[in-house]
């Protein structure tokens, strides 16, 4: 009885790959219907003059909006769960074991495990095959709504990156003839999209999976995407007056900088090729070291834009953190020396101590346990960069040699361990030391310091005025006012200290200010 019930449940619940396919198909269908309804509305109201340029939100019912959000969230969840499950079993050799033993034993359990593993593997394969990452990025950037796309049955129509690029090329000629309105999704969908991409980048376990994600051109498009387009859309839709819209915009900024940070945390010797663009150099100049230092660094350039003193405090701190981590890549010492040997001994000691402490905990954990969906690190501002913690948790019994292995192995999000070849280090150092970039990075600190000094002068002036007016006002009011001004001065001085700590961090290329 119980067995049959369980069978029924298993039959009723779709496998991850089925669910994933259904989700992707549904997104395509929603895109198609949304676009069609917009076209219909547009043709009806064609008599009235509408703006033909700029960015606008595409009209969308709230139910569809919610469905969009849930689908994007579920897609990223399925991909990460499947990828990590597959990675864990692949690394531990379970896959081979199942394949070898299944013929002999032919047990139900083994067969189920094998099917489950294949299902999970199929999810990521399907994700790559259908370029779902490109689809999500296209939704965020509005390309999916603005450009005509083939939204037929997802199973029969190929929407791979090559196909998409072909379509976009074909439409380029038409685009010039048509108006140039960029249709953007509602902010909540964009926010979920950015968060999902961050989750994907942060959580994939296998190096090959990460390489696939980072090599996708759509990631660069998302890095370069200007969020001001959403501000324009808000202005055109006359929603900018509401405070909720500005809050949503701030949320999008927050998740976007988190996305940039998730990328930055994945930089190491192997993945740096995806972040740096080397200009075309002649064969004669290939050996010219100085010339080869000229590189483009889109991630750094984009991050610098968020270092402005007028940005939200969290966004600014995160942006500076990314910049400092990037600069630090060039200053980490590579050549082993006596000093480093001492450091290594200290590191060994620290690791041994850590291993002893965590041994008990690790014994209780089942290493072959599949990752639960709840284990996925959400791309929220509170837990970015938890890869380091995860890496240390999953390898509690490793020795210092294992740590060295981590140092040179696939990206694990632990930037402190990253060690680059000299040429790349020089290229990064040369790039970040360009005067205009130094100015973009450092000048916001001094602007903020100057503003704080101005505030301090005003506060002290008010305090002086209070001294002069003493006797004219009620003493009680005077004291209250004095306390208020004094506390304000204290807060200004605290802000001054914070900014100076930023400066100190910049000069020492490390990020300590958050701890202080």
């Amino acid at each position, binding site marked *: 009885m119980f067995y049959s019930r369980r069978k029924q449940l298993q039959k009723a619940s779709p496998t991850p790959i089925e669910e994933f396919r259904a989700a992707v198909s549904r997104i395509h269908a929603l895109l198609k219907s949304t676009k069609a309804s917009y076209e219909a509305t547009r043709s009806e109201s064609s008599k009235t003059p509408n703006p033909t340029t700029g960015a606008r939100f595409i009209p969308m019912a709230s139910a569809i909006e919610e469905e969009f959000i849930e689908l994007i969230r579920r897609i990223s969840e399925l991909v990460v769960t499947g990828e990590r499950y597959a990675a864990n079993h692949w690394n531990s050799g379970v896959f081979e074991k199942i394949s070898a033993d299944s013929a002999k034993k032919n047990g139900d359990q083994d067969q189920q495990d094998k099917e489950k593993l294949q299902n999970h593997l199929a999810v990521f394969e399907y994700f790559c095959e259908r370029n779902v990452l490109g689809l999500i990025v296209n939704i965020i950037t509005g390309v999916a709504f603005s450009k005509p796309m083939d939204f037929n049955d997802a199973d029969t129509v190929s929407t791979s990156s090559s196909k998409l690029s072909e379509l976009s090329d074909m439409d380029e000629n038409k685009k010039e003839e048509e108006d140039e309105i960029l249709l953007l999704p509602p902010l909540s969908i964009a926010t979920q999209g950015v968060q999902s991409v961050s989750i994907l980048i942060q959580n994939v376990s296998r190096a090959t999976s990460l390489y696939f994600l980072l090599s996708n051109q759509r990631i660069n498009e998302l890095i370069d995407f200007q969020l001001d387009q959403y501000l324009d859309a808000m202005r055109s839709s006359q929603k900018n007056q509401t405070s909720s819209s500005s809050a949503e915009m701030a949320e999008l900024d927050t998740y976007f900088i988190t996305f940039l940070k998730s990328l930055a945390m994945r930089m190491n010797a192997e993945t740096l090729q995806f972040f740096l663009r080397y200009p075309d150099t002649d064969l004669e100049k290939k050996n010219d*070291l*100085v010339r080869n*230092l000229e590189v483009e660094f889109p991630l750094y350039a984009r991050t610098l834009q968020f270092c402005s003193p007028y940005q939200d405090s969290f966004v600014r701190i995160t942006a500076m953190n990314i910049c400092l981590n990037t*600069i630090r890549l*060039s*200053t*980490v*010492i590579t050549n082993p020396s006596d*000093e480093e040997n001492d*450091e290594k001994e*200290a*590191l060994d000691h*620290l690791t041994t*101590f*850590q291993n002893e*402490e965590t041994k008990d905990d690790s014994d209780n954990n089942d290493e072959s346990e599949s990752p639960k969906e709840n284990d996925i690190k959400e791309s929220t501002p*509170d*837990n970015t*960069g938890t*890869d*380091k*913690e995860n890496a*240390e948790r999953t390898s509690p019994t490793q020795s210092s040699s294992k740590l060295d292995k981590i140092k040179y192995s696939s990206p694990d*999000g*632990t*930037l*402190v361990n990253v060690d680059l070849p*000299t040429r790349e*280090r*020089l290229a990064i*150092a*040369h790039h*970040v*030391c360009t*005067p205009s970039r*130094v*100015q973009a990075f*450092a*000048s916001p600190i*001094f602007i903020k*310091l*100057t503003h704080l*000094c101005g505030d*301090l002068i*005003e506060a*002290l002036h008010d305090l*002086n005025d209070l001294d002069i007016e003493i006797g004219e006002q009620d003493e009680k009011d005077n004291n209250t006012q004095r306390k208020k001004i004094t506390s304000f001065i204290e807060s200004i*001085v605290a802000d*001054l*200290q914070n900014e*100076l*700590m930023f400066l*100190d961090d*910049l*000069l*020492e*290329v*490390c*990020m*300590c200010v958050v701890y202080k």
Partner: protein
Amino acid sequence: MVRNEHSNPYAFLFYLYLNVFVLKVGLTSLNEQTVEMMLATFIYPSILQPLKVHLQRHPYNGKDECFYHESKNIVPPASSIESETESNPNANEKGANDGGTTSKVIFPFPFKGLSKSLAQSGLLGDVVVVDSEENVEDEKDAASPQTFSKEHSDIIMDNSPPKAALIALITVLFTLKNRRVIYFVLTALFHPLAPNSSGGSILKQKPNVMKIENKEVCIQVDHSELDIGKLQDLLTSFMDGVGNNSPRNDFKENDKKQEECIFSLSPTLAKMLKHGDKSKVQTGSGLRKNPYREALLSCLNGNSGMLSLRKLAVFAVDAAMLAIDGERDAINTIFFGENGVKNIEASTGKEDQSSLDGKTDIFLSENDVSVYLNTKSIEFISSLCSSLTTASVCSTGKFL
């Protein structure tokens, strides 16, 4: 990553370890540019200039009429020793100074005034009764705290900008740990000489991130823990513009599209730190007497109506001493100019000898540059003494 350290104490320890042993370095080129930017956009305009302007505009200096209309009974001093115009050939005849105001900078410690001030404060041992003739001379030489009351000065003058500047300075000195910045800030404020605000040399160079050591290319990095000697060694290449082993020279004409760093203040300050020697520092070579130092010492001394700033000035000097850990070489170089202590010792010996002879004239000719550095040492110490002797003990047991 950052928040993670809080949740995992081992990861936090690991981070601290790396932070302490590995990561306390910065790119030299980045730091040079940042320090120059800091000096030009924050230190000089927001900290040093308000101090100087406050001193210049004060009624005691008798040049800015707008401060007198409310208290016409205040008689400004008729004249004073205008050392700025003597030393700075760039100053125009109308008395326009580098701060952009129309007033002339008054040397706050003219030697006669200072000696009398010291005598009055009792530092020289005997209680001196100042007669009426001396009072007349005092008014001619410089204003002193005895001639003007606090009410007249501080109520008229808005002292919020210099107060804010001093608070910001104290915060800078207490917060920043990078020695290069600390030395440059202290040199800008306390060194007897200062860079000319105009007409100084400008150094243009391409950002240099690498150096060649033992035939190997490596990245130029700064270690934050520098003493003054190491910094002086580092400054050699910085002052010359081109490092000895720098591949910067490999750039050719067709590399013009590359951006250049422009340094104006840092090279001069580096020169002052490196060659504080009297033989190499001349007031005509892009340097002038430091008006910011004079302003701060006025605050310390409490004269020229800057009594209300004394407390903050004492804190600032305390923060400065703590920032350099009382390093003797740094004090000699920054606060007294090079060989400052030797000059003091020499003059002290002279003082002792002259005291035995019954003569109290311990000051030498003002025109001599060496004597200038010498007297600068004395005025700094005497200002500290003055602030100490006039301090009062508050209920908490601390001096105010």
